[in-house]
């Protein structure tokens, strides 16, 4: 009951937020949402036990596809987001048949290599504008930051919904058992490959849609910045800080890191990302559960103790 109220309050804050703050803050929070969605999609893949380094690649595919259909075919920008996601999903579907046979470092490295392959292809085809990329005439909603905020908020909520669905529906039994022990999962009759492919395609499609939205917001794509490893590193750091294998973890992590990095950008023009590196190392070494879970446990312990005190005083 309590939890539902909290969710409603947070949702209300997110909805009325643009009414009270200037465009700079709206912009910062929009960026946080973008990375939040990427972080969740990375975590969803991780829940199957597969460490994917391909986040930036599918992000870039979606971005390129969406900008191309708007620029070359003149389609509606909002519709192009779907096309971006669809394209990334289809590519992931076909790549999945070969890539998902790999495990551990081989899967991670191959997805990272795929990102580089996408980058080189985008850099060299004439239809993708070569090394200088493509520029749209105008951003989505004419660059109105409030409308863009609501669009990306909507997409993020959808991603949160998908992530929760994966946590609560029957699928999560299959996913967790694959992560814990693949052989056992297989012998209990789970079609491992089918579930991996499903998660891989869905997370890649999410990354594609988010990439498309990001590209439409800035109205350009350019190989090295669209396939930038930032779209891989920051989501990973966020999920780690908040706590992996959960929906709430990446959300908490994205807000903490997103706001810290925005602040650091102002005081440290070069190398503010060093904080991300330090955070990844510190979290892996000292807090493998992230921030969210230990914090929640502490709070709920306190509540239980409080209740007990209240009862004993009665």
């Amino acid at each position, binding site marked *: 009951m309590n939890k539902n109220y909290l969710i409603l309050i947070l949702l209300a804050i997110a909805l009325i937020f643009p009414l009270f703050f200037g465009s700079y803050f709206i912009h910062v929070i929009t960026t946080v949402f973008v990375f939040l969605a990427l972080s969740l999609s990375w975590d969803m893949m*991780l829940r199957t036990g597969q*460490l994917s380094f391909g986040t930036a690649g599918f992000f870039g595919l979606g971005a390129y596809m969406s900008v191309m259909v708007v620029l070359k075919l003149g389609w509606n920008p909002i519709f192009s987001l779907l096309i971006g996601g669809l394209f990334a999903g289809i590519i992931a579907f076909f790549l999945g048949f*070969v890539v998902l*046979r*790999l495990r*551990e*470092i*081989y899967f*991670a*490295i*191959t997805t*990272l*290599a*795929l990102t*580089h*392959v996408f980058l*080189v*292809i985008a*850099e*060299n085809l004439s239809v993708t504008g070569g*090394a200088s990329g493509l520029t749209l005439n105008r951003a989505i909603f004419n660059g109105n930051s409030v409308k863009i905020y609501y669009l990306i908020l909507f997409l993020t909520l959808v991603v949160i919904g998908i992530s929760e669905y994966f946590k609560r529906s029957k699928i999560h039994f299959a996913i967790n058992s694959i992560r814990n022990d693949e052989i056992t999962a297989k012998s209990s009759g789970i079609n491992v490959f089918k579930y991996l492919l499903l998660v891989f395609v869905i997370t890649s499609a999410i990354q594609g849609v988010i990439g498309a939205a990001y590209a439409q917001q800035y109205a350009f794509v350019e190989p090295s910045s669209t396939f930038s490893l930032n779209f891989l*590193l920051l989501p*990973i750091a966020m999920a*780690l800080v908040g706590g992996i294998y959960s929906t709430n973890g990446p959300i908490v992590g994205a807000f903490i890191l997103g706001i810290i990095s925005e602040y650091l950008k102002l005081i*440290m023009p*070069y*190398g*503010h*990302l*060093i904080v*991300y*590196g*330090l*955070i*990844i*190392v510190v979290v*892996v*070494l000292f807090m*493998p559960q992230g921030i969210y879970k230990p914090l929640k446990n502490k709070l709920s312990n306190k509540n239980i103790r409080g209740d007990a005190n209240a009862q004993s005083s009665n």
Partner: protein
Amino acid sequence: MSLSLKTNKILLLFIAFLIIVGIWQPNVLMDGVQRGSMYALIALPLALVLGILGVLNLAHGDFLTVALYLSYVLYSNINMDPLLTMIPVTIIMILLGGGIYLLTVKYVVDEGHLNQLLITFGVSMILIEGVKIIWTTQPRNVFTGYAYSSFSIGNYSFGSYGLIYLLMAVVVLVGLQLFLKKTRLGQATFAVGQNPKGARIVGINVNFVYLFVFSIAVGILGIVGAGMLPQHAIFPSVGSPFSLKSFALAAMAGLGNLNGILFAGITLGVGEAIVNAIPGYSSWADIVFFGVLIIVILTRSFREAR
């Protein structure tokens, strides 16, 4: 017996490939061999760490960046010849490698792949961003007379500086092999690579071997960095692509096959040089490595599955 036949076949194919390229375009062959031995030289320490510690060091290329910058600092501040900086840079890199191992990698050697990859990923980011903070993102150059020297055979003239990579690669490779086979510590290292638990039982100080191997691997990058400086403009992300390229070579040669890395490096180097030489398609050269990497990994996985 059949294994040696197979190795011989691959070796013959390799030589035939080089000869064909050499007849077609000697310049491409020369460029490819120089490039390829540089890749192999960089990949050797990565393969060593991967083979002994079982850790894929994603920060590998960024250690190279640090070595390049250290070498540059010595060159610009006390006017040392880049090649002479090899000695101090290597010593500093060994200490840096050891320090980073003790602070981070040490704790994940026995853990799962996820933590190993993530922690070296974090270290990689710290190194890149640290370099940005200290030296900013401005590219830097070194000028030395000998970097652009050349020699000619018949009608063709070749840049000769790159041959230093081949020399260095052979020296490092022979040195590593002698160390692993002949010295006591080397044999211990070999044993740890084969079976850490067994090595621990027979009384080998496994932790020290890990520390030693990681430091030496980073130290070798110091040698490479000093050697690369005269020919390469340096900037904070100059080394990052080499992490993946080195892994491509290690995967192609097979785990624990140090000699194979030199052949794999030269093959891919020549392959890249061929793509580079095709007019209009030179910028596709980057795809050679990643394409080969993906194909090699996939064929391995299919072969295992069968």
